[in-house]
């Protein structure tokens, strides 16, 4: 499903990050662990096609995404990927439901009301369907972000520090929901984090070293 080989990335200047080779199969959940500055976010962005100009290969579903054009990467993300970040990054001008609908709209997929209700029910947000983002608690907002990431049933869910800002109770709830949603759709789940709490939920991990050349 995901195969990373000889991947390095150079920032402007001379810092260069060398990533270990690894592969993740369909439906598996994997943590990308490392301290801040170790390149977790960079790796996640490279895998999600948000960042290019790397060296090495990233194969996803057999496609080498490092060879794709920017437009093809946009389509690739819409087709295969869902993203969750530390901050929820919900669009505050829109209601919960409309935020969800942005995902199929931008991916040129069918906007299915039933699917939206299904996802909101799964995440316990169905009564917040028409709420404004400002009215949600932090935990609720993060769950809306998860709903948005999974509504298109993506092959891969990329999560960047999804639980770092949450308290223990919310952290447990969010990670469980995330894993449940991923397994329902047979999605591969990649979580970049330094949050040690997640280790008790997910065993498979890729450790990024802080060694920069």
């Amino acid at each position: 499903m995901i195969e990373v080989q000889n991947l390095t990335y150079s920032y402007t200047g001379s810092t260069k990050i060398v990533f270990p080779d690894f592969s993740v199969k369909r439906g598996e959940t994997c943590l990308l662990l490392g301290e801040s500055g170790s390149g977790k976010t960079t790796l996640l962005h490279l895998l999600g096609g948000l960042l290019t100009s790397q060296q090495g290969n990233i194969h996803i579903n057999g496609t080498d995404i490092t060879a794709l054009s920017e437009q093809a990467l946009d389509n690739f993300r819409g087709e295969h990927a869902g993203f969750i970040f530390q901050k929820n990054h919900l669009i505050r001008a829109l209601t919960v439901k409309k935020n969800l609908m942005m995902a199929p709209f931008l991916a040129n997929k069918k906007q299915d009301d039933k699917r939206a209700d299904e996802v909101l029910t799964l995440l316990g947000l169905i009564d917040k369907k028409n709420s404004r983002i400002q009215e949600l608690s932090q935990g609720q907002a993060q769950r809306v972000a998860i709903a948005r990431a999974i509504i298109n049933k993506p092959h891969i869910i990329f999560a960047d520090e999804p639980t770092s800002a949450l308290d223990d109770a919310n952290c447990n709830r969010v990670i469980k929901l995330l894993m449940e949603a991923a397994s329902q759709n047979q999605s591969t789940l990649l979580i970049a984090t330094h949050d040690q709490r997640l280790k008790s939920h997910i065993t498979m991990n890729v450790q990024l070293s802080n060694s920069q050349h």
Partner: protein
Amino acid sequence: MSTFSLVWNYLKSKPLNMALNITLLSLGIAVITILLLFSSQLEQKINQNAKSIDLVVGAKGSPLQLILCNIFHIDFPTGNIKLNEAERIAHNRLVKKAIPLALGDSYQDYRIVGTTQDYATLYEAQLSQGAWWNKELEAVVGSNTASMLNLKIDDSFVSNHGLTKEGGQHEEQHFIVKGILKPTSTVLDNLILTSVESIWKVHEHVENTIDEVRSDKSESNQHDSTFTASSLVPSIAGGDSTKEITSMLIQYRSPMGAVMMPRLVNSQSNMQAASPAFETARLFTILGVGVEIVLGFAYVLIFISALSIFIALYNSLKERKYDLAIMRTMGASRSNLFVTIVLEGSTLTLLGSIAGLFMGHGTLLLLAALIDDVQKAGVNGFVFYITEWWILGGSLTLGFICSLLPAIQAYRTDISRVLAEN
């Protein structure tokens, strides 16, 4: 979701901003619309009213005043001219038609014009009811006059001396409405027409004292053995030296008239000729300055609104950079973001200009309903011009221009960097 619904939700999330931008732009557009409607209709009216008249001959004074008074019936007469002198001009072989006008009286601010039926024919006016006058003190009223003053056939009224309500009334003489004209959308709609003799009759008592002095002259006229009717006012003997009229409208027989007639008339000591074409052109030039100042003001308003829209979009990009980045992660392309921002600016200007057009037309409708003079001038809010499409198109372009820079910035969003910032 759709691009438009996204844009609309963004606009709706800042209602005050949206209201300010739309209001600013709509004010500018409304001013332009009002000017457009007002000046186009006025120009059309003026040309319509003046189109078949080549020359106006009247007493010496301001030529513009002569035109304003005798064609548009807005200014006051320059004075009177002798009927026999007017006749001499009318007999010139370059003159195809000469129509006498006797002005100076009014009824409820609507002017009474002593003339011949030729005057109505000039504007292709037809009767909607009743008949033309054939006796003294019978009148035919314009369609607007009839409806505004609620005049019906066989109604009678007393005229005022002068062109305002303040003038003394000619109480002894009652006019009778004999006919009502169909609307012509010319100045005729707001007039009361009667024969020249009626005007003289009404003024007879005023001038009786003067007439006594002149009686020897008029008697000499009556003693003429061969009665040749005046070409202007057939009931009067040709060459009558006592009767006066206000002016005479002339149509030329050939273009040579335009060369010869004004000079011929102006060479006479107490008459002058004014060309409607020339004087209205001069009028437009005078009005043009005022119009341009107001227009300049409108453009300033529009410029400020464009600036305000630009600043609003530019500032909102700072708050929205995460929104833009997250949209990219969901599959939106750079051009999708560009289009979204441009659409936002254009929607604002489109709404602003539509609101402006409504305000413009609405203001004129209101003015026409509240102010008689606007209605008399024939200005109507329900007239639409092709230029208004240009206003709409122009404002869309304006929206595009002021959202271009923010849109380019959105296009250039570096998703990875924005998302890594926290």
